[in-house]
C-alpha cells in the first residue's frame, strides 16, 4: 500500500464527486428533501378522521351519544340522512367509516331486558385507519356509557379504564420514530446507490483498464472508492440529524460519539454493498436496478422503520436479521428517543460490523486485476 498513490486516487474520486452536480444533489439536497417528506408526508397518527353518522333514531338519548362522537378530538363527524348516502361516500373514500344509531336505539335502551346496539362500518381497504376508526368510536361510546350512568346517579356498569402512558414519546407522535428510521433509508440510498455506479462506470467508460494498467493495488483501489464516499455519507448523516432535531423538532437523546460509531459501521455495510454490486455487474444500468432492489427496498420494508418486524412470518423475520438497515433503524430510534442504551446499541454495532466486513471483504474478493 502506497499512501501517496492512495491520496492521489482519493483526490481523483473526490474531484469526480464534486464536479458531478448529481452526486452533490444526492448527498446534500436529497437528504433534506427526503427528511421533509418523511417528516410531513408520512404520518400514522389519525387525527380528524372523517366519519359519517346516521341518526335513524332522533331521540334525546341518541343525540347524547352523537354529542360524545362530536366531542372526540380524533373524529370529524359528518351527518347524513340515510345509510345509502354514507355507503357511497365510503366507496368514494370521502369518509373512512360511519356510525349508525338504529331506529329502536332509545326504545331498547329503556327496556332492561334488551341491549341497544350501535353499528360501526369502516373502510377495510385502509386497514390501519379502519382500526383507528373502530377504537376511537368505541372509546366515545364508553365515555357516553359512563357519563349516562353518572348523570342518572346510577352506579356505572363494571368498568375498567386503560390508562396508557407512552414512554420516550409521551404524545405518541409517529413522526418521532419515523424520522430516525427514515435517516436509515436516506443513508442506504446515499451509500449503496452512489457506490453502485462508481466501479461499473469505470468499466463502461474504459477507465478501469487505464487504472489496472497502473501499479495500483487492489486495496488501494477499494479504499480510494470507500474513503471519499464515506466522508460524503458522514456529512449527509450530520445534515440529517441536524434537520431532524432543529427543523423537525425530534428530540435527540444519545451522544454524538455513539452516533458516529453506529453511523460509520452502517455506512461501511451500505458502501460495501454498493461496491459489490457494481463490481459484479460491471454495468451501470443493471447495478442501479440491483441496488434499488437489494438495498433500498429491504431498507424500507424489512428494517422495521415503519412495518413491525414481529408481525412478519418466521421466514421473513429470519431474513430481516441479515439486513443491515434493521440494526441501524433500531439504533437510530433508540439513540433519538431513549439515549445511549447499551444493551440495544452494542448488539446493533456487532451486527453492523460483521455486515461491513462481509460486504467489503466480498468486494475485495471479486475485484480482479485482470481484463477478462
Amino acid at each position: 500500500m502506497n499512501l501517496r498513490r492512495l491520496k492521489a486516487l482519493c483526490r481523483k474520486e473526490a474531484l469526480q464527486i464534486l464536479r458531478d452536480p448529481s452526486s452533490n444533489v444526492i448527498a446534500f439536497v436529497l437528504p433534506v428533501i427526503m427528511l421533509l417528506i418523511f417528516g410531513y408526508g408520512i404520518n400514522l397518527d389519525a387525527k380528524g378522521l372523517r366519519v359519517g353518522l346516521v341518526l335513524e333514531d332522533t331521540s334525546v338519548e341518541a343525540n347524547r351519544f352523537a354529542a360524545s362522537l362530536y366531542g372526540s378530538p380524533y373524529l370529524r363527524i359528518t351527518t347524513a340522512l340515510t345509510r345509502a348516502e354514507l355507503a357511497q361516500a365510503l366507496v368514494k373514500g370521502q369518509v373512512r367509516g360511519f356510525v349508525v344509531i338504529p331506529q329502536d336505539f332509545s326504545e331498547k335502551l329503556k327496556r332492561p331486558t334488551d341491549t341497544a346496539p350501535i353499528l360501526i362500518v369502516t373502510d377495510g381497504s385502509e386497514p390501519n385507519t379502519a382500526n383507528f376508526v373502530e377504537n376511537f368510536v368505541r372509546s366515545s361510546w364508553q365515555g357516553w356509557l359512563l357519563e349516562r350512568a353518572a348523570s342518572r346517579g346510577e352506579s356505572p356498569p363494571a368498568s375498567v379504564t386503560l390508562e396508557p402512558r407512552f414512554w420516550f414519546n409521551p404524545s405518541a407522535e409517529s413522526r418521532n420514530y419515523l424520522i430516525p428510521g427514515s435517516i436509515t433509508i436516506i443513508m442506504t440510498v446515499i451509500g449503496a446507490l452512489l457506490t453502485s455506479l462508481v466501479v461499473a462506470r469505470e468499466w463502461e467508460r474504459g477507465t478501469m483498464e487505464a487504472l489496472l494498467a497502473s501499479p495500483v493495488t487492489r486495496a488501494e483501489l477499494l479504499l480510494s472508492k470507500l474513503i471519499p464516499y464515506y466522508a460524503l455519507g458522514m456529512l449527509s448523516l450530520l445534515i440529517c440529524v441536524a434537520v431532524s432535531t432543529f427543523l423537525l423538532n425530534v428530540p435527540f437523546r444519545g451522544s454524538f460519539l455513539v452516533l458516529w460509531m453506529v453511523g460509520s459501521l452502517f455506512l461501511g455495510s451500505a458502501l460495501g454493498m454498493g461496491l459489490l454490486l457494481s463490481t459484479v455487474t460491471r454495468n451501470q444500468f443493471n447495478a442501479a436496478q440491483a441496488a434499488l432492489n437489494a438495498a433500498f427496498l429491504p431498507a424500507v420494508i424489512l428494517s422495521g422503520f415503519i412495518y413491525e418486524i414481529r408481525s412478519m412470518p418466521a421466514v421473513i423475520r429470519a431474513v430481516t436479521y441479515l439486513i443491515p438497515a434493521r440494526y441501524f433503524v433500531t439504533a437510530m430510534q433508540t439513540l433519538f428517543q431513549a439515549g445511549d442504551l447499551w444493551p440495544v446499541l452494542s448488539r446493533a454495532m456487532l451486527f453492523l460490523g460483521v455486515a461491513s466486513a462481509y460486504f467489503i471483504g466480498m468486494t475485495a474478493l471479486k475485484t480482479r486485476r485482470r481484463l477478462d
Partner: protein
Amino acid sequence: MLHRIATLILKELQALLQDRQSRMLLIVPVLLQLAVFPFAATLEVKNNTLAVFNEDAGAESAELVQRLSRAQAFTRILYLNSEREMRQSIDRQEALLVLRFSPEFSRALGSSSPVKIQAILDGRRSNSAQIALGYVGQILQRYLDDRNLRQGRVALSSVQVRHWFNPNLDYVYHIVPSLVAIITTVSTLVVTSLSIAREREQGTFDQLLVSPLTPGMIMIGKTVPALLVAGVQATIILSAGVFVYRIPFQGSLPLLYGSMFFYILALAGFGLLISSVCSTQQQAFLGVFSFMMPAVLLSGFPSPVENMPLWLQYLDWFNPLRHFIVIVKGVFLKNMSAPLLWPALWPLLVIAALTLTAADWMFRRRLG
C-alpha cells in the same frame, strides 16, 4: 411511418431483453416483492410480547391475563415482578406494552367501583403500541360483557363492527392492489428514462436523432415498451393477488386496464421529461429516484393522504401514483364504477398531457 415506429419498438424490446442479467432484473424483483411485501409490509400487530406486572392476587386479573394470552397479537406473556423489570422490558424492546394491575384490582371490580389498569407503551413504536392497546381494550370489553352475562345482567348497549371490502382487516387486501401501482411505476420509469440515458452515454442516441425518426416517434418508441412491460407485470401481480392471495376481484378489468393505460402515459411523460434533462445514467437514475421516492411515499400507500398537511396534499395532486392507487384499490376491492372513478382519472389525463407535451418540447429544443 408505422413501420418505422414498429422497428424502433422492436429494437427497444431487444435492448431490454437482450441478455440474461437484464431479463432477470425485469422479472425476479417483481416475483420477490410479490412474495415478500404482502407478508412484510403490514401494520398489523401479531406475535408480540405483552408484559404483565400483576400486583393483584385475585381471580379477576388472572382470568383477564389468561384471555389476553390467547389473543393473536400476543404470543408471549412476560411476567414481571418489579418496576425495575418493567423499565427494562420496555427499554430493551422485549415487550411492546406492559399492563400493571394494582393490588386492589379484583376487589374493586367485585364491588363495582371504577378500576384502572396502567398501560406502559413503547413510544418508539407508538403506532403498533396503539393498535395493541386497542386489542387489549376489545378483549377487556368482551371480558366485562361476559362477566355481566354471568351475573345475569343485560348490557345496556353494545357495539357491532363491520369492516367493508375487507371483513377481517387483512393487510394483504391493501398491499397487493397497491403493489400493482408501485411496481409498474418502477419499471415504466426505468424503461423510459434510464434507457434514453444509456443511449446518450453510449452515443446511440445521436444515431437515433440523425435517422428519419422524429422526436415524437422516438418518444412513442420508448413509451410503447414501457406499456408492454408494465402491462405484463401488472397482470402477474393481479393474478397472484386473485389466485395466490385469494383477494376477491370485485370490479371491472377493462376499466382497470383502461385507467392503467393513462397512468403509464402520465408516468412515461415524467420519465421522458427526466431523461431530456440528463446526460449520464447516474443523473437519470438520480432523477428517477428523486421522482419515484416521494411519489411512492406520498401515494397513500404507507400512510393515508388525508393525514398530510393541506399544502402537501395540494402539491401531491401532481403525483400520478396517488390517483392511480385510489383507482386500483377502488376497482379491485370496492367495485368502483366509472363515474365514481372519474375524480381520480381526470387528473391522470391532465398530468399525462402536460408531461408528454413538456417532454416533446424539451427534446425538440435540444435538437435545435
